[in-house]
């Protein structure tokens, strides 16, 4: 087990190296010129060229990548020989000249809102998705099943920017049930935090809950037809025990995988939900960075989001081994 974990972590690192290399090369091929961003309105070709050299953008891509990786561990100084060098301390994910701030710091400041949004929605969608999915499976073919599945279909089909905007229009503007969203840390003002987050949570969770209802229902229906469920009934176990102990244990296992990966995906930023509710999260930062062609920031966000997914993959695999005794991690 521990040998497996070590090996998985090593391959994770290798994957991150490859991934960052690909991202780096990909973005260096874009027509946008990062040097242009460092050069204000009165830009002349000679200043631009000087800046390019200062930032090391004249170097070959591979060498730029090497500087980038080195910066992650030991920090990095841009334009070291000029009168106004820019310091980027380790872990340096790059420096946004557009925003005049280290990429790492920019992302770090935006992470709390994203994490709160993701976890809140996660709890909501798992609770709603799994419970309604089970309910639906146990009443297969009856009106309860049909209503839940109909609801899931609607939730799944409606784009979240649409229901998000409708919710803002009615709940905040028309009926004024909630104040205008304005993010604040829950440690500073829990009430305002909840008032701000409740709608984004629900909107984000609706989409995922719909998906999890269908997933859970299908899983349960499959498991309920399995032979060991018949054995459990043949033992004389009450139906409640058959469902809770035998069917759920087997049926929910694949949902753990899906849930882990979905949560990790959201930690990289829920772009639409964050943008609609103007939450200061990684997702809205990503949108802004794309609008500004702020290349170092885009690279940084991409890498952070990918790292979450890679780590979640490992955690999910380890969890799977805990849940299913047949899975041997070797």
């Amino acid at each position, binding site marked *: 087990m521990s040998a497996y974990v070590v090996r998985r972590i090593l391959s994770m690192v290798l994957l991150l190296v490859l991934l960052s290399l690909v991202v780096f090369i990909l973005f260096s091929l874009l027509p946008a010129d990062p040097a242009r961003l460092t050069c204000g309105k009165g830009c002349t070709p000679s200043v631009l060229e000087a800046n390019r050299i200062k930032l090391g953008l004249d170097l070959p891509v591979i060498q730029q990548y090497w500087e980038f990786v080195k910066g992650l561990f030991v920090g990095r100084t841009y334009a070291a020989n000029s009168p106004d060098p820019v310091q980027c301390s380790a872990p340096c994910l790059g420096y946004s000249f557009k925003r005049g701030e280290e990429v790492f710091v920019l992302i770090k400041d935006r992470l709390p809102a994203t994490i709160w949004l993701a976890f809140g929605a996660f709890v909501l969608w798992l609770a709603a998705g799994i419970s309604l999915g089970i309910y639906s499976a146990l009443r297969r073919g009856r009106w309860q099943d049909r209503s839940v599945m109909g609801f899931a279909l609607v939730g799944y089909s409606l784009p979240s920017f649409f229901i998000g905007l409708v919710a803002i229009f009615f709940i905040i503007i028309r009926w004024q049930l909630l104040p205008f969203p304005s993010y604040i840390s829950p440690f500073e003002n829990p009430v305002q935090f909840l008032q701000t987050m409740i709608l984004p949570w629900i909107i984000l969770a609706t989409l995922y809950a719909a998906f999890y209802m269908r997933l859970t229902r299908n899983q349960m229906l499959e498991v309920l037809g399995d032979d*060991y469920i018949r054995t459990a009934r043949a033992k004389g176990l009450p139906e409640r025990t058959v469902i809770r102990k035998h069917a759920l244990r087997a049926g929910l296992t694949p949902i753990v995988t899906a849930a882990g990966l979905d949560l990790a995906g959201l930690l990289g930023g829920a772009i639409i939900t964050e943008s609609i509710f103007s939450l200061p999260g990684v997702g809205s930062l990503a949108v802004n960075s794309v609008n500004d062609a702020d290349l170092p920031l885009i690279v940084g966000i991409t890498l952070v989001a990918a790292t979450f997914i890679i780590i979640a993959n490992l955690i999910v695999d380890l969890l799977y081994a805990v849940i299913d*005794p*047949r899975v041997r991690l070797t």
Partner: protein
Amino acid sequence: MMRAARPFLAVEGLSVEFPTEDGRVQAVDGVSFSVERGKTLAIVGESGSGKSVTAQAIMGLIDRRLSVVSGRAWLEGRDLVAMSDDEVRHERGSSMAMIFQDPMSSLHPFYRIGAQLSEAVLVHQKVSKQEAREQVLEMLNRVGIPDPKTRIDDYPHQLSGGMRQRVMIAMALINSPALLIADEPTTALDVTVQSQILELIGTLQQEYDTAVVMITHDLGIVADIADHVAVMYGGRIVESGTVDEIFYEPQMPYTLGLLSSVPRLDQVRAERLDPIPGNPPSPISLPPGCVFQPRCAYSDRVTSHACETVRPELVDIGGGHTMRCHLDADQRGQIASDVLSALAGGGA
């Protein structure tokens, strides 16, 4: 009292009807049989003949919200069909138990076998977990699991197929049920393991004085272990009698067909195996007359053409040997002796 006269398990006119997208399906139609304690009844038939559904109906494993189960199934004088779901549940695993075809998929892959067996004890007996574990160890030992103290903490996938079926048998018999229904318990196992499992069931049957209903399509098994045989076809019993009556005085052409489609090592064969031509009928569209008529090689001997139009009744031809067939006694005798002598090695 009626009760005293009734056999230990008496199934009377048991029928099961499923709704499907193509209409209602009569999977089991008026099946009757009985078994005494210590005796074995074999229910024989092809896939789709309704034998497993019959077993599940007796066990109360058919979802009665979706299907209609009618008739009677008296177990020690109490009608299982008339009981509420919860009443039948209390009988399941305590007074009657069942083992299934595939021991791998029949055990829960995520729980240790000790936990799965203890669960069966704890649901029916008021004992502590420790006492339940003691009973499990004892039972594992009885069914011939080597080193039960270690094996009790194994997961099903760590055991061989034969061991898993032993675990299933242990689970079924741990509350000493008086009725054991075995639904093709050896079909998924190696031949060498098959005989061990059958022997084990036989030994435990004697020990507990259990009535056994053995569902199988393997006539070799029937000859080995059964006292009585019921042959099922198209959801009905088409012939039933003692094992000797079925093997030596078969009446119904379907029974003959089954007998001649089995290789027999005890007799020198002159001809190749004779499979029954055609396929079992779909329960959605059963033939209007005798359900076996489309595959029957002898139905044209019935001059009235009753085979095509009239369902034959179950007739007692003496001593509890019953069968459904429109052929008269002479014709049946002639056909049976022809087929059996051909089986015995090409002409008398």
